[in-house]
């Protein structure tokens, strides 16, 4: 870089993230998703008015990365905690960040009812089809036939049911104002993911109600794949069963 003075930085880390390394495994999408959320916090100028409800999963340490106020929620209960945050500080920007074990298993009642009440919060849902933190057990979103540490013979429709499509289910609720499923496995999808997050942030800041962004995410470690393979799986098997797209956008026109 001979002419450093003339160079302009076209990519930098968002200000809402602390400058510390993540504990995530190599190639884990949690890292990208964190950054995208932080970018919107910056873009909307919300760093000083954001309250986040962390959940229990690999992302439990998100408070070590986001430079905003964060409260730790019991496993699955982030939407209830966020409800408490938002109701007591309606002017704050409130979001939850939850995994699929957290949101689609133990926290089913809380997410359904937060959505149904139309809580004016934003939910970032990271669906990696597995309980990551606890070492790779089957999640409600684990794909059929997928081998995990608690589905050693592969997930079976007969005994475990089919993977649950949360975005579709929540979209049936009147209170859900915005719902989209996105991925960050390539640039095209990443751009759509940014747009979806932006829309979700718009919903909340305008007071339009409950917004939900589901990220299909990779877990190389527990899928027992390389980062590349896992990244590819997101775009293929995952997106085949969990179609990407905007499921609800009540203010669209």
């Amino acid at each position, binding site marked *: 870089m001979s002419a450093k003075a003339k160079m302009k930085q076209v990519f930098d880390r968002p200000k809402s993230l602390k400058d510390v390394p993540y504990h995530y495994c190599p190639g884990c999408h949690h890292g990208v998703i964190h950054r995208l959320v932080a970018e919107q916090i910056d873009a909307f100028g919300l760093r000083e008015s*954001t309250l986040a409800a962390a959940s229990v999963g690999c992302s439990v340490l998100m408070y070590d990365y986001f430079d905003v*106020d*964060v409260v*730790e*929620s*019991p496993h699955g209960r982030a939407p209830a905690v966020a409800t408490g945050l938002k109701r*007591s500080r309606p002017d704050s920007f409130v979001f939850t960040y939850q995994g699929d074990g957290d949101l689609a298993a133990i926290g089913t009642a809380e997410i359904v009812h937060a959505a149904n009440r139309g809580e004016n919060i934003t939910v970032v849902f990271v669906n990696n089809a597995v309980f990551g933190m606890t070492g790779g057990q089957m999640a409600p979103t684990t794909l059929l036939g997928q081998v995990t540490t608690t589905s050693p013979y592969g997930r079976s429709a007969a005994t475990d049911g089919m993977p649950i499509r949360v975005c579709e289910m929540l979209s049936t609720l009147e209170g859900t104002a915005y719902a989209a499923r996105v991925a960050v496995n390539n640039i095209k999808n990443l751009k759509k993911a940014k747009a979806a997050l932006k829309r979700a942030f718009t919903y909340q800041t305008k007071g339009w109600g409950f917004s939900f962004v589901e990220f299909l995410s990779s877990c190389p470690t527990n899928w027992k794949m390389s980062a590349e393979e896992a990244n590819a799986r997101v775009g293929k098997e995952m997106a085949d069963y969990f179609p990407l797209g905007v499921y609800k956008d009540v203010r669209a026109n």
Partner: protein
Amino acid sequence: MARRVMIKGNEAIAMGAIEAGCRYYFGYPITPQTDIPEYLSAAMPKVGGVFLQAESEVAAINMLLGAAATGVRAMTSSSSPGISLKQEGISYLAGSQIPGVIVNMSRSGPGLGGIHPSQGDYFQSTRGGGHGDYRTLVLAPSTAQENYDLTMLAFDLADKYRNPVMVLGDALIGQIKEPVELKSYRKKPKEKPWALTGAKGRHGQILKSLFLADGELTDHNWMLAKKYKSMEKEVRFETYRAEDAQLLLVAFGSVGRILRTSVDILRDKGKAVGLLRPITLFPFPNKAVRQAADKAKVLMVMEMSTGQMVEDVKLAAECACPVDFYGRPPGSIPTPDELAKEAMKIWRKRGLK
């Protein structure tokens, strides 16, 4: 002068909460405490507060956790089975040092049990029914007036210690209607620099209970243990005709109030019987019990259970005098006569005169 009204015990709790500045209530219906959410559903909007019926007790305690994390005064209430469901959340509140008031108008158990008054949740309340080595302050009112007063105190203590506070009544204490003097609350709110209000001009702030580094959690637990120890100064109890009592009855809550009548009955018969009624169950009035054990010939604990608080009394009495027990598991309400009779059995058995 403060207004005197005739209100239900449950209403007194709700009114005490509002008077103490609580503007956030999250609950789920369950007999015999449903008057609390019912009252607050009408009252909260009038004072600019939030009443929210949660989808479950689990959700309610976690909504409280979220609201209280922002520094506001928040409350939830339930009854026994619902309180069991809140245990994980209460443990998180304690671990994260988030204050909050939890009312348990307990009912008969175990399981679905019934809706009779009961004192079977004493252990759960005082020993931390949730996981881990934590305590909640526990206040045990015995009249509608105390419901009102102790609810206000509960908020102060919660903020003071950054800890959940339990108000433990039962079906009797919740359903009874009595005159209540509506004293006004005059404390000025405590500053809460730890509260999450948005990282304005500062770095992000965290409320959490996870401590992974080697030894970090040990320190956290010791800090909490010291805090619990320091709560000893909040001990409250009441005595009734206890000065010269040879047989001192010990009971809390509804049994504590019923025993006033029993003491009168026995005193009328010339028996030197008195009453000690712990008002704080945690911290337990250990010193008072120890002193009483030195003075009285016999302590006798009476509970609407097969025996829970009796353990605390024994531990406090340190064998200074015998500790007898009469248990009356829930299913109906014991009468003053019945309890007086039981006291007389001990009186005779212990050869008191």
